[in-house]
């Protein structure tokens, strides 16, 4: 743009298409770069596998050849965990079919996640926008945030019963605070220039909230979703601890009651898999919702 002459003032500036890829050395260079990147990716995956192999191998070998030091009865054994999973998948668990346990915990987690996120965003935005509200209620929210909230699971088990509602409530309470604080902070950090600009352009209060405040706070809110899904999972599993008949958490407790360490690990593995899948979904959502953000520093390829 700066290279254009003043005479070309109102000319249509065509999108830059980049310099023509003329010389062979450049093609060669970029091909080399792509190869290097592929090799790097391959190395990353290989090292990940190696890490898992070393940890699991050491675990397996020590429980097998030194059971007096690491007793598989207490510490489990990778082959035993695998066997437990195979039994759960092909046969069934102590509580019924495995898919049913995963589904129940998933429902509780997603339910708590949604309830906690929506209430966190709504109350966070309201309090971020309204000085009086935040001055009055901030002390209570800080106090509530300071107590270990998982114990509320016990209360919900009494008041809401042993069905899915008490688990959703426990998960939602954990999620709420994280999302709330991020939404609140996000609203507070909106650039004043942007608000002034929107007002000059004619935005009323409602438009200001939906068109400036919320989009601006969105990157804060979405950042909190990564953590809060994990917390929702914690809430659901803890909720199952206080009384349940189904779910992965309950599966873990029933394994624990039977001194089945492999069962505990197998349940943890299921929870980890669920969390990883959810994380991938949230990342995809993030990329869709905030595609206006510049790519992270360092993601550009230098050749």
């Amino acid at each position, binding site marked *: *743009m*700066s*290279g*254009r002459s*003043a005479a070309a*003032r*109102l*000319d*249509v*500036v*065509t*999108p830059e298409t980049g310099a023509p890829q003329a010389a062979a050395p450049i093609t060669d260079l970029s091909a080399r770069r792509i190869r290097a990147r592929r090799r790097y990716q391959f190395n990353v995956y290989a090292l990940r596998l190696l890490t898992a192999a070393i940890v699991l191998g050491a675990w397996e070998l020590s429980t097998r050849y030194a059971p007096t030091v690491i007793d598989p009865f207490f510490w489990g054994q990778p082959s035993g965990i695998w066997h437990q999973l195979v039994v759960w998948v092909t046969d069934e668990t102590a509580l019924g079919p495995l898919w049913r346990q995963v589904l129940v915990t998933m429902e509780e987690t997603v339910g708590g996640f949604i309830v906690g996120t929506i209430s966190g965003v709504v109350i966070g935005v309201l309090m971020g926008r309204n000085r009086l509200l935040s001055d009055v209620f901030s002390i209570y929210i800080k106090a509530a945030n300071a107590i270990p909230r998982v114990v509320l699971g016990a209360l919900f088990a009494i008041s809401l019963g042993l069905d899915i509602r008490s688990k959703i409530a426990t998960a939602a309470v954990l999620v709420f605070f994280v999302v709330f604080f991020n939404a609140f902070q996000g609203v507070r950090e909106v*650039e004043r*220039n*942007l608000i*002034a*600009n*929107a*007002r*000059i*352009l*004619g*935005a*009323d209060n409602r*438009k200001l909230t939906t*068109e*400036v405040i919320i*989009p*601006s706070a*969105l990157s804060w809110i979405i950042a909190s979703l990564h953590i809060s899904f994990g917390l929702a999972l914690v809430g659901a599993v803890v909720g199952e601890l206080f009384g349940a008949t189904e779910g992965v958490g309950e599966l873990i407790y029933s394994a624990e009651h039977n001194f089945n360490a492999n069962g505990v690990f197998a349940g943890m593995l299921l929870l980890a898999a669920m969390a990883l899948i959810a994380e991938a979904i949230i990342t995809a959502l993030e990329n869709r919702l*905030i*595609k*206006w*953000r*510049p790519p992270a520093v360092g993601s550009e390829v230098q050749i």
Partner: protein
Amino acid sequence: MPPAIELHGVTKRFLTPSGAVFTALRDLDMVVQPGEFCAVVGPTGCGKSTTLALISGLEPASEGQVTVLGEPVTGIAKEIGYVFQSDAVFPWKTVLDNVAAGPRYHGETSRQAREKAREWIARVGLAGFEDRYPYQLSGGMRKRVALAQSLINEPKILLMDEPFSALDVQTRALMENELLALWAASRASVVFVTHDLEEAIALADRVFVISAGPGTVKANYPVPLPRPRNVTEIRMQPQFTQIYSEIWNDLKDEVLVSYERQKRSGAA
């Protein structure tokens, strides 16, 4: 016809976080005629931006009267456009939606607004960039978006707060010429705040010199250079140099006062 903008005995005070009263403007008088291009120059921190905030209705005056198009300012008037110093385009909107924001806020349908926006995007030379996000544009291009965003509302008053100060010299000259062309077509009244006296003279019909804070109008100078102007060429004319040295004599003292004060508050 009433003046486009009239400030009469305007004072603006702020309460600093420590509780002290800070006077940004004191007893300021300024009149801008319809269709006039005015530049406001003054040392750093003299309240130039505050003046714009008062005219726009973003902030109320502590004392005195602010009148825009014959009406006292009570809030943000529909006839006002404002180009901010730093980037104020919405980073989450594409160029098209950024420019279409004004008409949409004023109740036009999305389709109407976008159609109009396309026209304005072409007029500021950004055709083909409608679907880009601001981060994908250069600083100069973002300024074009900001210009189109303001001008699409067809403001009768255009306020500009050092809009080009962050641009490199060449882009800046380019944008200044474009601004003059767009202004000539719109005939809006412009108040253009800058700390660059050359830019002020090259663009404006009249230059207001604001004294070191608390700001008040020290003097105003008509700039009788012929239009249409080319900002790069006009700087070479002897008349330009003459006007420049005349205004600089006035401005220099204020800059020195402001500088001395900064040094003292830095030493304290």
